[in-house]
């Protein structure tokens, strides 16, 4: 019999400290670097949201030390409205780009995609390293704007024109702040394009023998589909950022209309199109929502099956649904612009696919729920967060039905209803996906188990806490509370202030609960119980290698794949599962068709 496993030695294991831990070419180290960046970004974004929430609940509250962050923005430690908007912009930008895109896609994808397809690394390790360091630079450039001139931009993470292009006359941070923001996002786009390049080539070209496309685990499919989406979206956002920078620095007029008077000054631009920015931005911006959530769908399916001890009703349909979400996400972006002065007929044209996109999302949820029905789910931190993901995805998704219809959206647009909607479906759901992935894969990544008790406490506090924060948002929105106001002196808003205070208290407590997670992460990293190679009795390739995996993932050999990724609930020599790389025969009829 021929030796079907082949030697794998694309690059040598590094010896120097810098090559090993800093400028590493190893996809596993790069994945961890992305994870660390996302953690740093998430903590910064969370602190910003705390500051904002305190200000919304108690407008004149003194926040000790705030003056240190910005002398002009917080004279006497009291936040000005402009500084509130700056914090809000940075919170949104940091969370959307550097947490929700970076953690579930770039961090876990980098670490586990090559292992799940059986490769020893990505095909272009140098591009992969560049991808991380460019993204890191993007983060530094963004944070730099806190310390330069009049602070970061205040235009919101969507940076609508013409506010983003007229310069310092529009308010603090609208000069240099916007230039830094656009530079940072442009760099981020380059980093993600380099990452997508590697992800797509890895999935298509580096699969080991026997690993057909339909045998890829759902998480690998999710990363592959997300990288295709990212490739399309970030390639459009980058030119948009270039045009904004040119409007600032070169005096062009892409986005600034003529005759615009701001703060009693005539803006020296002519004839630009403010809607053009929205078109370019939302062509990226809507798929970005799915870039954040699709990896979560894959991770949650992957985690649930290992804990349900049976396959989903249909893996194939979940793959098709993720593909449908990816394709449709490019046809719905106009629903962000129902009240931007678009032709009402195009609003209708965008409303229809927006309602259609709920179909694949609903099918996915139904497959999860009906697969869970009757299964003896192993309750652990990972599976709890996976269930939490489903809960958040449904609760946040339902409000999408309302917003998808132009006639209702006219009333709800730019209210807290929208803020509640996207925080649940995109923010918290994706975060729960990240947590599920962390509790599930931490043993493989570090060789140590996380503390389960702390993990469960973390789950219940986060689960109850996030509902307490974001459910009242919907109520505020229906009561007419417009978003982006820094205080509520109007008569009709004043009765809502107690609701804001409740949300603030819930946000502070839920945020504090995240410190349990950080403690668990750091403590388990160094003091945790040491992990076996396959602690969850799972089947995909990452569990058939050592813990933590060696430099070339499989110790100098390519594994060979014999089975579908989720052979749970079968009779075998090791228990109720058969690993993908095990040559053991599964009784016919049990293998997925």
């Amino acid at each position, binding site marked *: 019999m021929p030796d079907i496993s082949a030697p794998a030695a694309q690059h040598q294991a590094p010896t120097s400290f810098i090559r090993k831990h800093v400028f590493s070419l190893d996809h596993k180290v790069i994945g961890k670097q992305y994870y660390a960046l996302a953690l740093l970004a998430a903590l910064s974004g969370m602190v910003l949201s705390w500051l904002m929430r305190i200000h919304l609940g108690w407008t004149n509250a003194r926040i000790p030390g705030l003056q240190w962050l910005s002398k002009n923005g917080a004279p006497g430690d009291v936040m000005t409205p402009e500084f509130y908007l700056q914090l809000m912009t940075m919170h949104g930008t940091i969370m959307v780009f550097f947490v929700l895109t970076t953690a579930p896609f770039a961090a876990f994808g980098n670490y586990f995609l090559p292992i799940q397809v059986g490769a020893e690394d990505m095909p272009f390790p140098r591009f992969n390293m560049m991808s991380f360091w460019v993204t890191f630079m993007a983060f530094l450039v963004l944070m730099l704007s806190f310390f330069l001139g009049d602070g970061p931009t205040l235009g919101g993470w969507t940076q609508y024109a013409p506010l983003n292009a007229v310069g310092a006359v529009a308010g603090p941070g609208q000069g240099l702040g916007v230039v830094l923001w656009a530079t940072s996002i442009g760099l981020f786009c380059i980093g993600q394009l380099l990452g997508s390049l590697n992800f797509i080539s890895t999935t298509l070209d580096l699969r080991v023998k026997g690993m057909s496309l339909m045998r890829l685990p759902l998480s690998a499919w999710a990363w592959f589909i997300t990288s295709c989406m990212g490739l399309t979206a970030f390639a459009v956002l*980058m030119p948009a950022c270039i045009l904004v920078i040119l409007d600032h620095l*070169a005096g062009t007029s892409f986005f600034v209309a003529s005759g615009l008077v701001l703060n009693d000054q005539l803006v020296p631009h002519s004839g630009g199109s403010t809607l053009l920015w929205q078109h*370019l931005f939302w062509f990226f911006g809507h798929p970005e929502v799915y870039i954040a959530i699709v990896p979560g769908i894959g991770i949650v399916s992957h985690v649930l099956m290992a804990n349900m001890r049976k396959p989903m009703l249909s893996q194939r349909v979940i793959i098709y649904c993720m593909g449908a979400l990816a394709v449709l996400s490019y046809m719905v972006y106009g629903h962000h612009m129902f009240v931007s002065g678009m032709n009402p007929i195009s609003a209708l044209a965008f409303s229809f696919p927006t309602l259609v996109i709920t179909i694949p999302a609903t099918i996915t949820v139904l497959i999860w729920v009906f697969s869970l029905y009757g299964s003896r789910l192993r309750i652990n931190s990972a599976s709890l967060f996976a269930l939490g993901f489903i809960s958040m995805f449904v609760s946040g998704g339902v409000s999408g039905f309302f917003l998808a219809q132009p006639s209702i959206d006219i009333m709800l647009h730019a209210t807290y209803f929208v803020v509640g909607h996207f925080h649940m479906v995109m923010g918290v759901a994706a975060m729960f996906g990240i947590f599920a992935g962390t509790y599930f894969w931490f043993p493989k990544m570090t060789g140590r188990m996380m503390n389960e008790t702390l993990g469960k406490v973390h789950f219940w506090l986060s689960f109850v806490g996030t509902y307490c924060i974001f459910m009242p948002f919907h109520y505020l929105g229906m009561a007419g509370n417009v978003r982006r106001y820094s205080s509520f002196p109007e008569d009709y808003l004043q009765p809502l202030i107690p609701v804001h205070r409740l949300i603030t208290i819930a946000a502070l407590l839920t945020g504090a609960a995240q410190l349990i997670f950080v403690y668990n992460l750091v403590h388990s990293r160094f003091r945790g119980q040491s992990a076996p190679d396959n602690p969850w009795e799972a089947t995909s390739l990452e569990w058939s290698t050592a813990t933590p995996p060696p430099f070339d993932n499989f110790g100098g050999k390519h594994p060979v794949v014999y089975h579908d990724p989720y052979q749970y609930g079968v009779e075998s*020599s090791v228990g109720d599962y058969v690993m993908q790389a095990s040559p053991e025969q599964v009784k016919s009829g049990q293998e997925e068709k």
Partner: protein
Amino acid sequence: MATTVHQPPQIDPQRLPDHGHSGNDGGRNLVPGDGGRRVALEYSPPPSSTAMWVVLYAITMMFAAFTSALIVRKGSSLDWRTFKLPSILFLNTGLLLASGVTLEVSRRRIAAFLRNLENKVRNPARWLLVTFFLGLLFVAGQYVAWSQLSAQGLYLATNPSSSFFYVLTATHALHVLGGLAGLGYVIRKLSKSSLRRSTLDATAHYWHFMDALWLYLLLLLWIKV
């Protein structure tokens, strides 16, 4: 009382994998076992080809975004002023197209060279150098076009039409410079006899794409600007 004894499942460690259920089988990246310089040179690992299509797709999306911006910007305002394109652009077009032809000539020669016909093909890098030179001339020609326009008083910020002209041509020129770097890499690898066929092919695809992209941009600018 009868007892049921479960037979342990049979494991055949020599079992070959089947081909899965659909989609292409994996395992395409395994380096051929028999080794040998010729096999290694002829062997094309697919990732570079896949990656090149991915890159070209991203570039296409980028220029699609610029194009839609141009169309929206022109349609939404009254300040658009057309101007005559500098005629040197047509000469540049000829240079770039010629470089595509010379690249194909050099690809044939290098393919013959790699098939161990060294005695028939002397200096296989010659036509690559010609391609490289023509590419450099193209970029220089674009620079001349920009200076001609600025001599007429048309700068980046003068009018949206000139803004788009500079943005589109400069972005394309930057990508051509990237292609020149790729050609330089190929020439260096060839001189060290360590060129992979797939590297050459990927570079050639990129270069021809730059040709096609330029023809598209020229047409767009000719119609709209």
